[in-house]
């Protein structure tokens, strides 16, 4: 079990598989809210659905519609289960608040180097602790 400690900015606790990307995510033109899928053609997660997963990403990019697009995933039932990101911007912070999923920012050791896609993680948005409960390679 590996623990990452950061700052919780949206309370709540959730356990779900991680979806990790090293590329920032765009809201407007970057995700389809109806399906919870990344749609930016040149993105490494192009075509991948984040619904119900812990989205581990560097931060937000692109239009200020970011928060509204992620808020819409909540309203449409396609939201990620939690968010973990490093770069603190108004877009990503407001987006996490209105998506209302447990969110931890600026955790150490660094999430992008520690968490892998498929790892089962627990995100505690109150204490700011992200725990890798089971790594992807050891699961079947």
């Amino acid at each position, binding site marked *: 079990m590996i623990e990452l400690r950061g700052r919780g900015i949206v309370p709540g606790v959730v356990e779900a598989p991680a979806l990790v990307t090293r590329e920032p995510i765009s809201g*407007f033109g970057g995700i389809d809210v109806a399906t919870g899928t990344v749609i930016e053609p040149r993105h490494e997660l192009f075509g991948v659905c984040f619904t119900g997963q812990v989205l581990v990403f560097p931060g937000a990019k692109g239009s200020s*519609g*970011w928060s*509204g697009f992620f*808020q*819409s995933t909540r309203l449409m039932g396609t939201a990620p289960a939690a968010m973990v990101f490093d*770069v603190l*911007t108004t*877009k990503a912070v407001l987006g996490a608040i209105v998506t209302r999923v447990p969110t931890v920012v600026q955790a150490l050791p660094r999430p992008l180097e520690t968490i892998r896609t498929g790892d089962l993680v627990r995100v505690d948005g109150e204490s700011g602790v992200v725990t890798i409960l089971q790594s992807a390679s050891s699961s079947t």
Partner: protein
Amino acid sequence: MRLTDDEKRMRDGAEGEAVAAAMDLLVRYGDALGAERLVETRNVAGTMTQPSPAKAKLVEEGGWAKAYAVINLDCDRDIEIPRMKVPTCQLQHGFAGDASGLTHYADSAIRLQDDAESYFSDRGVNILATCTPYQVGNLPVRGEHCAWMESSAVVYCNSVLGARTNCEGASSTGAAALTGKIPYWGNHLPENRHATHLVRADVTVDGFQEWGMLGYFVGELVQEARPAVVGKLGQPDLADLKHFGAATATSGGVELYHLPGITPEAPTLEAAFGGARIAEPVSYGARERAAVYDALNSRGTSRDVDFVLLGCPHASLDQVAQLAALLEGRRLHADTELWVMMPRALSSVAFHNGYTRTITAAGGRVLTDSCPAMSRAAPPGTRVFATDSAKQAHYLPAILGIEAWFGTLEECVDAALTGRWGGGLR
């Protein structure tokens, strides 16, 4: 976050439930950012009128009050929405009546938006209906604290005007409009406004297309950081900087840049860096310029162009005048549509100046309020479009699943007249 007595009273309901909900959101948001306090603003630019499936459902359930509560205040309670406390404008939104029947865009959405315009203008929202409020009367002054959203407007506000705003969202602007407050964080703090990166243009950057390509390069390079740009820069005009900033905010998340000697907070390169050590320059040369051009044209295969889109961000009067001059006495190809998007207020001037008549006579259309990216609709059957906007070339292939060509205004007009893309990097 420290609240003033006045802010505590608002939070506790002294000014009604909507203001209390707005203050609650601002406190959650400010705390999450790590802000120490709020700052007063009398200039809010947000979005509330544009239809979306989620909003239409909320309006059906509880009218526009419910839609504003949920989307613009992140509040699930049933509350009344009072008059906006400070000057607030609506940015771009969905297509209006002038686009009715031109696209697969539901008339019900146009009616829903009309209804929203009445509701929110009754509450003091100025329906400027443009991504470029600075072109039509909302022109903050240097140092003014604003709460703006729309990435291209934010970067213009900070960089060109020297006013101060973060890249806000629908909820934070919705809350700012009812309270006159926004977290004092990020770009509001003077010490956060200095350059972090330096880009040196080693090729000449002059004219609309070149400024857009440089912006796209800079945004991808610095992401959320603050670039200063020097080198072989021509004198930009409003449209050039509008395009440059929009491109930096599209490929990256730039909210503030400095052009030493041009933009107001950077009389010199040293001033741009606020006295700190000047960063090592990254060169924007012929190779980088070609790579940007290729990236923006990587979504084009067929040269048969069925749609030409101009005006992103919304066209200035000069841009529309240039377009009218190029279309004077000509006629678009039978299978090609041309739209130029501009602010509603400027379209009135374009009409009186005869530009609209010239463009319409050629078969083009002057449209307002929105754009194909915002409204997710282009002329029916569009497969390949051409644009002079780096932002639209970036976004539309993802949003509409169509191919894109990026070039100059002249190349785009040529494509509209011939139905063929003949552009190339020169």
